[in-house]
């Protein structure tokens, strides 16, 4: 693999929250149109890492980053880079479903609206297409103008996926998207992910190892802020190179 194959690439990424270092020298490459899973015990820095990819850590005070992250070979942390432009290309779905306190329609149309699209028919198109891509359209098409807060947890999470799809990103980051959901809703989201990788590159953080094994093509194992092992999912789960990875996979700790 040459570096050109990688859609997102980190180089010696270090991150501190105030005095506390959370990531150590992460070097990693993400292959396009595949699902990459980040696994590891709680507090290992996997959520922190995924939030670096769309510069979400900018929101947190006292967060300091060194090293580089390349997206299409452009460093997204260089001084001229615009976090907003980055986020338009790299969408994100959060751990807890977080629809806005607005209608279902407005939730999905929000991304287009903030880009200045006001034409009603094109907004309608975007909403319909995104909801269909997120496999939610049939469930909500009759109540688009009701509050999104009235949806079930699984529906809310799919709405959030539809919302992030609405602006046609290249990458979708998912930060433990199923941790607040029941098994049936989780299955639906997992199906959805598999469908999404045709068009998008997906990076998912999970501490559910079965989920990582089920849906991902590549898996990275992190421990105490360090990248321990990265490789194809089958190899990681069946034949891990590092002892730490093996301990975790086999359930000896974590």
């Amino acid at each position, binding site marked *: 693999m040459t570096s050109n194959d990688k859609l997102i690439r980190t180089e010696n990424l270090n991150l501190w929250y105030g005095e506390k270092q959370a990531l150590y020298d992460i070097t990693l490459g993400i292959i396009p149109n595949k699902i990459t899973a980040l696994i590891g015990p709680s507090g290992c820095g996997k959520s922190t890492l995924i939030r670096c990819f769309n510069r979400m850590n900018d929101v947190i005070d006292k967060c300091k980053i060194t090293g580089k992250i390349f997206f*299409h070979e*452009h460093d997204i942390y260089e001084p*001229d880079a*615009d976090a907003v*432009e980055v986020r338009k290309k790299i969408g994100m779905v959060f751990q807890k479903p977080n629809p806005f306190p607005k209608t279902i329609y407005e939730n999905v149309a929000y991304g287009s609206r903030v880009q200045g699209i006001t034409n009603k028919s094109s907004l309608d198109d975007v909403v319909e297409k995104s909801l269909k891509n997120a496999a939610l359209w049939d469930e909500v098409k009759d109540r688009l103008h009701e509050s999104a807060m009235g949806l079930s947890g699984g529906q809310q999470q799919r709405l959030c996926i539809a919302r992030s799809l609405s602006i046609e990103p290249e990458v979708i980051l998912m930060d433990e998207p199923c941790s607040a959901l029941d098994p049936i809703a989780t299955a639906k989201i997992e199906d959805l992910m598999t469908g999404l990788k045709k068009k998008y590159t997906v990076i998912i953080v999970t501490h559910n190892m079965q989920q990582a094994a089920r849906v991902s093509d590549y898996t990275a194992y992190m421990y105490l802020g360090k990248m321990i092992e990265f490789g194809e999912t089958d190899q990681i789960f069946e034949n891990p190179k590092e002892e730490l990875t093996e301990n975790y996979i086999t359930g000896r700790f974590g």
Partner: protein
Amino acid sequence: MILVIQINQQKEKRQLGMLVISLAVIIILGTSLFSGCVQQQGQQGESIVLIGRDSTSGTREFFWTFVMGKANFSASLLEKNSNGAVQQTVSQTPGAIGYVGLGYVDSTVKALKINNITANVQNVLAGTYPISRDLYMFTKGNATGATKEFILYIQSTEGQAIVTQEGYVPLQNTSHYNTSGKTLSGTLTVSGSTTVLPITDKAATAFKVLYPDLTVTVTGGGSGAGISAVSQGTADIGMSSRDLQSSEQGKGLVKHVIAKDGIAIIVNPQNTYVTGLTLAQLKSIYLGEITNWKDLSK
């Protein structure tokens, strides 16, 4: 992506220029509009600003009865709750006119001649200055003890010296005050008219020298407040610049005249339009019929 950013930057520059221009237009238009609004307000110092006392003041009641013939004041009269406040506002406001007790005239304001008579103690005493009245102290029933002695003191030659010193008009034919060996103690509370207040305050200080064991408290509040305080028994003496009203009679209050006062008509020192007014002009001004100083200087 780099290309996109460059195009954006060019666009931004153009837009920024547009913004600056539109902001400039807003500011120019805004200021011109605003100055237009303001010009409607009239020129500084030429519009007459009427200053008067609040509706329960003795000075106002006297002015209203004597000068206005009980006709209503102009609605644009601004009320102040003390002589000092009237004086202070007039000294700060170029177009203002106000009325205060003679004692409140100082260098920060200009007192006008009325019917060509200067407002001063001599002219009030001579009876030529037209706007003057008596100042009173009221007690509940006949004054006794410390109350009686204090009123006697103010009415004495010594007390009247303070009256003169404070710029008011003293009583005639007074005699010297004599403690004749009396001692007084306890507290004596005096409250009411702000016109009388400066006299009482000075007199109280001198009185305490004569009777070291006595505490005298002097407070303002206005004639009405003083009269109601004394009739309720919360004060021993009520100071007033007016006589009792019908609602205050029949409460057993006894009247003591302690001095005379001229009412000075004051304007701002910057006022170059007038040096004197007739009573008729004064009435027209306070009725709101004359609203500009220029109409008077013609």
